[in-house]
Every structure is written in C-alpha cells, then in structure tokens.
C-alpha cells in the first residue's frame, strides 16, 4: 500500500481531493482562495498603517494562514514519507523543448536551474525568483484571485470575471513560456 502511495498519483485523484478540501472549507463557513494570504501577511506586518488596502481586520483571516501552514506541512510530509524521489515523468516533447533553452531532463520534482541554492546565489537566479514572485503577488491581487479563487472557486460558480481572469492567466503563461523564457534562459 505504501509503495502505491509513494508513486505519483494519477491526475484524477487530485481534482477529487482539491474539491474535498473546498467542501471542507465551505462546510466550516470559509471559501477556497489562497492568494489572499499575501494580503493578510502584509496587513499582519503593519502595512495597514501606511496603505488603506491593508487596513482591515486581518485576524479574521487567521484560518487561511492556518491552511497555509498546513500546506507547508503537507509538502514536508510528502517529501519525507510519501515520495520515492523519482523524476517527474513529463512528456518527451517538453523535455526536448526545455533542453533547447538549456534545461537538463528532470532529475526530481523541480529544476536545479531555478530552485538550487547555486541558482539562488547568482544575480540572475535571484532576480528570477524575486521578479516571478512579484508578478504572482501583484497579478493575483490586481486580478482578484489566483488558481484556487478564480479557476476553481470562480469558474465552478459560473463567474464571467473568473473566466476572463483565467484567459489572462493563459495569455501571461503563454507569453512567458514561448516568448520570454527563451530570452531569459
């Protein structure tokens, strides 16, 4: 049984469990949306003193910060106890495309080219992580949500704004993948 769990899980298990998580949050009177944690953390750090956007009762969002801490613990448990350390089995076509822009075939879950300490301590690697994070934080708040809030909670509630946001996610993702990544790497 444990051997089976340690293998990567098929895609259909993921959607089911994600919706189970969403159902648990709804049952406890909350909603599924992760990126608002960034706003909460800014507010908890005192950003509300200078910027009105962060002047709200952030303590009411403590439950979502607890969800965030759970997500970190879930990652830790997966890595320590539920992983066989195998490389991600992406398609051959992707491996070839990535090799063309200087990425080695997958050795694990994440590319060394971005997530190793070596990459972090190069100026380029540092700016990629900082800049990418900035785009995620700025874009999710400007657009009013991220993958959980718009693509899952919003689309499933047939919200047109969420569809527009998801189209935006793909415009940005395609531009980055096909036009910018070859220039960056």
């Amino acid at each position: 049984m444990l051997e089976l769990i340690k293998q990567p899980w098929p895609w259909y298990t993921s959607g089911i469990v994600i919706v189970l998580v969403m159902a648990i949050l709804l049952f406890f009177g909350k909603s599924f949306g992760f990126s608002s944690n960034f706003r909460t953390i800014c507010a908890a750090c005192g950003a509300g003193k200078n910027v009105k956007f962060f002047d709200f009762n952030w303590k009411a969002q403590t439950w979502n910060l607890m969800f965030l801490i759970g997500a970190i613990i879930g990652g830790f448990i997966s890595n320590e106890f539920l992983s066989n350390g195998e490389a991600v089995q992406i398609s051959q076509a992707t491996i070839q495309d990535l090799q063309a822009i200087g990425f080695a075939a997958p050795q694990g879950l994440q590319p060394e080219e971005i997530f190793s300490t070596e990459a972090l301590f190069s100026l380029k690697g540092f700016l990629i992580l900082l800049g990418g994070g900035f785009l995620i934080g700025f874009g999710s708040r400007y657009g009013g949500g991220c993958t959980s809030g718009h693509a899952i909670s919003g689309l499933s509630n047939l919200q047109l704004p969420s569809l527009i946001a998801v189209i935006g996610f793909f415009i940005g993702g395609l531009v980055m993948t096909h036009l910018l990544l070859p220039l960056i790497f």
Partner: protein
Amino acid sequence: MKFLKFILAGILFGIVMSKSEAISWYRIQEMFRFQAFHMYGIIGTAVTLAALLTYTIKKYKLRDIQGNPIIFTDKEKSVARYLIGGTVFGLGWALIGACPGPLFVNLGHGYWPILVAIFGGLVGTYAYGLFQNKLPH
C-alpha cells in the same frame, strides 16, 4: 483547537498537490506547451466536481456547521482588472512554475530558495495596495 481543521485541510491540500505533481515547474511548462493532458485533467476534474458541489449547495440551500447558509458572492463586473491582473499573474506562474498555494507546498519540500519568490509575492501584493487607485479596474 478551532484552527486544527484548517491545518488538516491544508495538509491534505499540500499532499495531493505534491503527489499529483501539480507543484512541479516541469508540469506547468508541459501545460503551457500543451504537451500533456495531466494538468488539464487535474483542473478539469476539479472545476467539474466543484461546479456540481456549488450547484448542489445552492439548489438545496445547504448550511455550514454553524447553521448559516453557504453563500457564494458574485465577483464584481469588470474586464480590465481581470484581464490585466490575470495576465501579470500568468507571467509569474509560468516563470516560477507555481501559483500561490504551491509556493508554500514547495517550501515544505525544502526548496528554500522559493522563500525569495514568496517574499516577491508579498512585495508585489504591497505594490498593488500602494498603486491600487492609479490602476484601471
């Protein structure tokens, strides 16, 4: 321990995102290159089941544990903010290969450099708050 249930829900989320490899930069690249069904399968199943869940809750007017009706608030109508904000988000998603949830799940895996991306996310959110009134919404 009123927060324990949220921690447990987060743990479940972290495990399933890890085990289905949805937190992997490689999987996001594969998705934006349309070279596998994997991520579309995950998002497609999630949206379909979530739509069924939402429909059921609305139809039978289900209530939460405290007896309050479960309400789904409609998003404000607009195009600009969702399209521009979404596009900016997409640029970051494809570069880092993680959206906000997976940033933290990856931290649990011990990818410490991602702390810089998380810090970037906070700076980006702060910048939005700072310039909110000057941006088209």
